[in-house]
């Protein structure tokens, strides 16, 4: 899932005919002043980063005139918000709020399809609302194959206490927002607050649009919107994460998923989504944080494993490596092991000094065992050792007490 930057999200809304507060993305205080002047003087200046919580972080400024807008831009540009560097700010027309609503379109695992979430209590943190007043949030499962019928939008709005012109205008906005959700393969379209302004117009001062990366094969236009080095969901990529993306891009015959954690010391290359979680859990239980998580889908993997192992072991401060994963059903495991072992040999890893544990099971295990034996000191486990017990071994060898 990739969260679009706010001006890209607002572009999608505006294109679907949802009224938005006029906005401009700028990268300098001077441009911010010009933008504010063009919007009539006063403006809201917001840090443009793919993350929420900007209000609480002091990254939204209400400005009375272009000079104040320039000052706010000067204060925000070049700083970091959460983990993200602020390279641009959004300068937006002020909205005189009369009433605030919450609305979102996303998928629900239990109704197994799209849902509309709506509340007349907009503007506040949604988590707080759901915790304190769950009955104030209305949920309506939707047809994945059709537009949102206007009468359904009116029913939801009416159930939330809306009526008259406001009900009709909100219902119209909801239908347009569902179009944004469907036409852009979105995973989430959220407008909080959706606003009725002092003139009675319904408009979106801000919006969150998250797109489903699994649909990128039919959205060439996303290339211009999504910075491939931008984010792993909660912070920008680290240099090592960027390097792993580069390695992944060398061959589309398989796909790597990689994360690193600053506080960990044991490199984990345990593939498989489920086995990755089981071993992560167990490592935390034993008082250690992994330095990395790593997964690779089947395909042409040997060269990628070689490059990935070399890159990961280049990280300073590592005390050990665990490699392997759950028992393979049909994919020969020795191909991957060949790449890993080649990297270990080239890096002259002595596993008697830098502990290395392999946990390999499935077709090719005997070849894998022989390959591992070419590096002195690798502790090799097959399916007779559980994944958790293999994690316990690397923690015993490389944990060195509490982290």
């Amino acid at each position: 899932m990739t969260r679009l930057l706010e001006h890209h999200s607002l572009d999608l809304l505006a294109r679907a005919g949802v009224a938005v507060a006029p906005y401009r993305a700028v990268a300098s205080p001077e441009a911010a002043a010009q933008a504010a002047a063009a919007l009539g003087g006063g403006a809201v200046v917001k840090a443009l980063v793919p993350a929420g919580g900007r209000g609480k972080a002091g990254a939204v400024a209400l400005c009375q005139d272009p000079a104040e807008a320039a000052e706010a831009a000067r204060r925000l540009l070049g700083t970091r918000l959460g983990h993200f560097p602020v390279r641009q700010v959004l300068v937006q027309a002020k909205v005189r709020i009369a009433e605030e609503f919450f609305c979102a379109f996303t998928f629900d695992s239990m109704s197994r399809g799209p849902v509309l979430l709506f509340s007349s209590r907009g503007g506040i943190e949604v988590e707080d609302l759901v915790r304190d007043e769950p009955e104030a949030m209305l949920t309506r499962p939707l047809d994945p194959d059709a537009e949102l019928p206007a009468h359904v939008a009116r029913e939801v709005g009416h159930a939330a206490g809306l009526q008259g012109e406001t009900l009709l205008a909100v219902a119209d906005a909801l239908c347009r927002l569902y179009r944004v959700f469907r036409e852009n393969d979105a995973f989430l379209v959220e407008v909080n607050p959706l606003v009725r302004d002092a003139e009675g117009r319904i408009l979106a001062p801000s919006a969150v649009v998250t797109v489903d990366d699994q649909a990128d094969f039919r959205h060439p236009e996303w290339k211009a919107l999504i910075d491939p080095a931008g984010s792993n969901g909660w912070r920008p990529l680290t240099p090592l994460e960027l390097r792993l993306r580069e390695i992944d891009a060398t061959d589309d015959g398989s796909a790597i998923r990689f994360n690193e954690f600053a506080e960990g010391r044991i490199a984990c290359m345990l593939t498989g989504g489920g086995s990755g979680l089981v071993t992560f859990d167990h490592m935390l239980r034993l008082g250690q944080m992994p330095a990395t998580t790593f997964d690779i889908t089947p395909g042409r993997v040997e060269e990628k494993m070689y490059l990935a192992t070399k890159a990961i072991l280049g990280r300073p401060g590592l005390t050990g490596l665990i490699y392997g994963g759950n028992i393979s059903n049909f994919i020969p495991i020795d191909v991957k092991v060949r790449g890993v072992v080649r990297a270990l040999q080239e890096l002259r890893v002595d596993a008697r000094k830098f502990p290395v544990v392999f946990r390999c099971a499935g077709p090719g295990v005997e070849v894998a065992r022989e390959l591992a034996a070419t590096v002195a000191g690798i502790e090799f486990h097959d399916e007779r050792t559980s994944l958790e017990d293999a994690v316990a071994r690397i923690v015993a060898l490389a944990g060195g007490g509490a982290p």
Partner: protein
Amino acid sequence: MSILLDERSRVLVLGITGRQARTHLTYMRKYGTHVVAGVAPGRGGQEVEGIGVYETVRGAVAEHVVDIAVLFVPGSGARDAALEAIDSRIPLVVVLAEGVPHHDTALLLREARRRGVRLVGPNSQGMISPGKAKLGGTGGAFPERMFLRGPVGIVSRSGGMGGEIGSALTRLGIGQSTYVSIGGDLLIGSAFADLLPLYEQDPETHCVVLFGEPGTGHEEQAAELIRQKRITKPLVAFVCGEALEKLPRGMSFGHTSSIIARGLGSPVRKKQLLREAGALVAERFTDIPQLVRQTLR
């Protein structure tokens, strides 16, 4: 007995001419899976291993009775292929593809429900009724290495870890009735609550092992079935992912998915509900075989 699949189940293979499909077709048939026909648009009239290839599902079902369609089709083509199988009302459709867009999955799950078709997946690694038949990649070329016929049902969100459970039980001589890999996506066709009642009805199954993951309310729903005594056979449950609760939020769940969850989705909470309902909850994966053995005494 077993659930969903046995040696008599008549199987149609979609995307049969692909490289992966050919490999697994060989393994499936060697193990006893009764494959009656294949479909590959643009390649009708060919044969793969003596199995006739049809242009369309409709063409195949006009000449063969089909109980199960298994799709060897990539994520980008899964919607079309699954809709075709659903349209012909094949009772069970198994979608192996990973990376199916959410909007596509939502659509084909809705169509399956409308037509009374049971859908397993997407992102399923298939299933196996040991000693009888298997679908998809499960068990590979030598399923007997990991799976043995016996009294334990396995239903897992993770294909890899479902195989680990089978392998661990088999090494102890504890066999399985049917293992189903239900897939780890947010949207899936068959969740625990859809399959547990089948195990409950199956005379060969004495105990079920459930492997759960963070997010969704599927484990909570399984706990509710036990609480209501609609599931009375022993259930051994393992839910991974407590670690995610300690990581930054954006990494695991998005904003609104946590809202919909209404307090659902946390592994700690899932385990608590399962335990309160009477399931045997394994805190460590390694404990699963021992708990299973207890239930079989």
